[in-house]
């Protein structure tokens, strides 16, 4: 047995002899000497009130695993939850690469000792650029909410206008983020959706632009919409925005772009969205990263707050180097005179999404999009056959997610979800709170991980649950 407390394994200089030698080396009698500037009035005169330390790794593992054991994962249950966070398959290689210590434990290195992350993130930008058919893509910002909020601010700065038109289908949470982020410089108005198609009401857009078009900085639409519908009027919406002198911003799910035309082909000005579907686990909502993309127009490029890694020559011919494009626009360079701010965001998820796109390739992304569409359509068809269950926007194409209206069953989403949960199924995201006009509706997400048998099971169990 050792005498006295054991040195903490994460604190090498906690070894008493070393600590004493270091104190002696700097002529300090104790660590108290270093805190001389902190007035006694604000010194904490008691130990922090925290649980006793769990010293051994073995006990720590047991402790945390016991807590996590209270969770039911989407590997154990059959989950159709989406609403912005999706259960796509995560290839093993994605976890392998983002678990590598060289990437995981690095930070803000220069292009010399951290050339690897610069190239990996440049390649992420480049592969997203191919998916989106864009020449400029940022190093990821926090998440798709932030990407959309920043895209709105970019549009306001570029146009010098202060009104943003957003779809009323947008999730309440995303709208909350955008409204909080853009005030007081930008006002937000919601555009209604067509009750038969579940897509933007273009007549309402046209009418509103006729009234206030000269104030509109951007029209932002989502593809697919939060309700899962493919925005069939995308090209027309972009045209209408441009006629009013506004920018068109499209928030797009990148996992759908193997089959859906990228917004750039509609003529959109700024794309944004979330990369979580690209090889990143759901992580209880902790796996998000945001992309912003545009044409290589300096007027737009200079409005990005994010870092943009560009390729550059080195002193050795043929060698690739990388660095920040137009660094002087950032808050790192010029504080509040920069464009919004930049900081630690989601770089490793960017590298991961790059790995995913490299694994999937052009045909993998096409097949992914095709199979999600087919599976979603299959599920819609099966569920629509259940008495009292309605699929309100069934005539509109859907990419992977769709609304199921349970109002006709006489039961609430909460009730039905609860019954299905007991049968090991997570039905979907309850829309009744944020889209009350849709009644007792739930958003059901189907991806490539759901086999036909899973969808048949969902149909059978839902039929039971709504009885």
């Amino acid at each position, binding site marked *: 047995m050792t005498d006295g407390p054991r040195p903490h394994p994460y604190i090498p200089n906690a070894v008493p002899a070393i600590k004493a030698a270091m104190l002696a080396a700097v002529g300090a009698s104790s660590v108290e000497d270093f805190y001389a500037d902190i007035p006694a*009035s604000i010194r904490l005169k008691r130990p922090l009130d925290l649980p006793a330390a769990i010293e051994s790794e073995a006990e*720590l*593992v047991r402790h945390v695993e016991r807590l996590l054991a209270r969770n039911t994962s989407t590997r154990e249950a059959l989950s159709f939850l989406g*609403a912005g966070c999706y259960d796509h398959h995560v290839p093993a290689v994605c976890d392998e690469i983002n678990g590598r210590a060289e990437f995981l434990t*690095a930070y803000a290195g220069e292009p*010399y*000792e951290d050339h690897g992350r610069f190239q990996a993130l440049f390649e992420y930008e480049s592969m997203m650029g191919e998916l989106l058919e864009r020449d400029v893509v940022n190093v990821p910002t926090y998440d798709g909410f932030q990407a959309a909020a920043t895209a709105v601010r970019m549009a306001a700065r570029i146009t010098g206008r202060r009104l943003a038109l957003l779809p009323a289908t947008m999730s309440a949470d995303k709208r909350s983020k955008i409204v909080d982020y853009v005030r007081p410089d930008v006002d937000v108005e919601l555009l209604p959706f067509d009750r038969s198609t579940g897509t933007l009401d273009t007549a309402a857009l046209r009418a509103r632009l006729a009234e206030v078009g000269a104030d509109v900085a951007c029209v932002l639409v989502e593809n697919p919409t939060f309700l899962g519908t493919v925005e069939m009027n995308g090209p027309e919406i972009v045209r209408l925005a441009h006629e009013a002198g506004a920018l068109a911003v499209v928030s797009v799910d990148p996992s759908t772009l193997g089959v859906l035309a990228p917004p750039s082909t509609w003529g959109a000005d700024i794309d944004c969205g979330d990369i979580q579907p690209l090889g990143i686990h759901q992580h209880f909502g902790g796996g998000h990263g945001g992309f912003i993309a545009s044409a290589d127009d300096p007027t737009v490029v200079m409005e990005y707050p994010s870092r943009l890694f560009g390729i550059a020559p080195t002193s050795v011919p043929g060698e690739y180097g990388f660095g920040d494009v137009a660094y002087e626009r950032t808050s790192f360079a010029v504080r509040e005179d920069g464009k919004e701010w930049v900081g630690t965001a989601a770089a490793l998820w960017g590298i991961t999404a790059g790995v995913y796109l490299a694994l999937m390739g052009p045909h993998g992304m096409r097949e992914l999009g095709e199979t999600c569409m087919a599976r979603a359509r299959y599920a819609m068809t099966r569920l629509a056959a259940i008495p009292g269950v309605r699929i309100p926007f069934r005539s509109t194409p859907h990419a992977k997610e769709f609304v199921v209206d349970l109002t006709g069953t006489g039961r609430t989403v909460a009730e039905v979800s609860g019954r299905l949960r007991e049968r090991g199924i997570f039905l979907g995201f309850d829309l009744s709170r944020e889209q009350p006009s849709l009644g007792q509706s739930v958003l059901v997400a189907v991806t490539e991980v759901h086999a*036909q048998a899973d969808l048949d099971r969902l149909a059978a169990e839902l039929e039971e649950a709504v009885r």
Partner: protein
Amino acid sequence: MTTEIRPTVSAGLPVAPKPLPRRFRQASWDEPIIFELSVPGARGVLPPATEPGITALVGDPAAELPDGIRRTAPPALPELSQLHVVRHYDRLSQENLGVDLNIDVGQGTCTMKYSPKVNDRLVGSAKLADTHPAQDPSTVQGTLEIMWRLERFLAEISGMERVSLQPASGSSAIWANVSMIRAWHESRGEGLSAPRDRRRDEVITTIFSHPSNAAAAKVAGFKVITLYPDADGYPDLEALRAAVGPRTAALLITNPEDTGIFNPRIEEFVRVVHEAGGLCSYDQANANGILGITRARDAGFDLCHFNIHKTFSTPHACGGPGAGAVGVAPDLVPFLPSPTIERDADGRLWLDHDRPQSIGKVRPWYGITPNLVRAYAWVMSMGAEGLREVAEIAVLNNNYLMAKVLEIRGVAAPYATGKRRIEQVRYSWDELSGETGVHSEDIGYRAADFGTHYWTSHHPYVVPEPMTLEPTEAYSKADLDEYAAILAEIAREAYEEPETVLSAPHRSAIHRIDHEPLDDPDRWAVTWRAYRRKHTGGA
């Protein structure tokens, strides 16, 4: 007892111990851009094929999409077999350093401490990684319990009433605090939409606080006033007194500032701002040296934030995901981001979305959960004594390293001369630069040749030719000796053979970059497609 090993030299045998600095050589794979590795037809991973039973019922919905909506040609992504994807990224990883590989004391302000492997393993569990944030709370009580407890740990560490773990990072947490400050004044009729004479539209910060304090305040609609240090390096109290007034919304300040100097008049700063009717928000990015020593609330702050990826050990991940936490005094609790995690009488945890004064969402869902669980596990491995030891050793390491660095010719630690520092120091190579023509950036490029990272400071360079070192608690005495030896060697080179430093790096993955094209719209290239268009005629 430690036995001192003396260098021994025998003919033909190695010298022991190894001399410092080490003869590092980074992997240099000359790796092509991934598009150059593409082999048409190759596949890296196959998604499930659609079952015939599905196709029989619904056909191929994608094929039915109309023109303009359907993608006509597949995206021009590279095509690689799986090994080749793995090899490419493994090679790139070898051209990257991290805490696990280098003595990462050179990224001051960022607290590059060790991230325990066990915590990475714990959060890789499907019980966390494969859970959805909209699951019924009854199915995620474990995660909610961990988050609820972590909130209480951080409330105790800061002295604050309540904590939200929603922010994505330090800057995201600064934003949350600025947004709460804005909402609080708004609720009292003194917000940005109030009449001119009642409007509080000014935020005060200091130049040695992170640039995001100033930048986030500006985005929120505030005018930013930046205070500079007085002659001793402390934030200037007289300048603060001159700056506050009826328009003051808040003070956003770091302490210790990025110089590692603790502001001993911090209570006075807080009082001056409070008397003017403003709020005080504490950027605790630099909390690592004061855990268990002093607390935000005890100095009178109304709000504070922590960088979970700094102080609480989660990996920095090449620049995120990190995680942030905000803590507030009782009056500001209603303004915290939504939802909050609540515990009912039965002990069950639930999410409260019904909070009318809340600023709403800072990010999707509830926070960067994997990092919150890592942070929880880390605090549990420490306990109160451990956290205090973290602080004390971090500060001891810093003062030890400072003594070693200040022995080197040409370097100084401006301000508070002769005094101790807390957890980091912003040094200046001004003297060396003036005498040799070697700049701080050059020293950083040369540091890469010795297998280490090095950073100057945020801009503007208030301290000329800056270098910011923060040794945290994670590095050993031998590590610190080695880092100091590297700096000493580079300083020697600067005086005796400056060209060696000015043409560095020599043993890194790549050589010195020509940055000019990166500021030229005609030449910059943020994607490979832009590069090919601009530089290879589209080939």
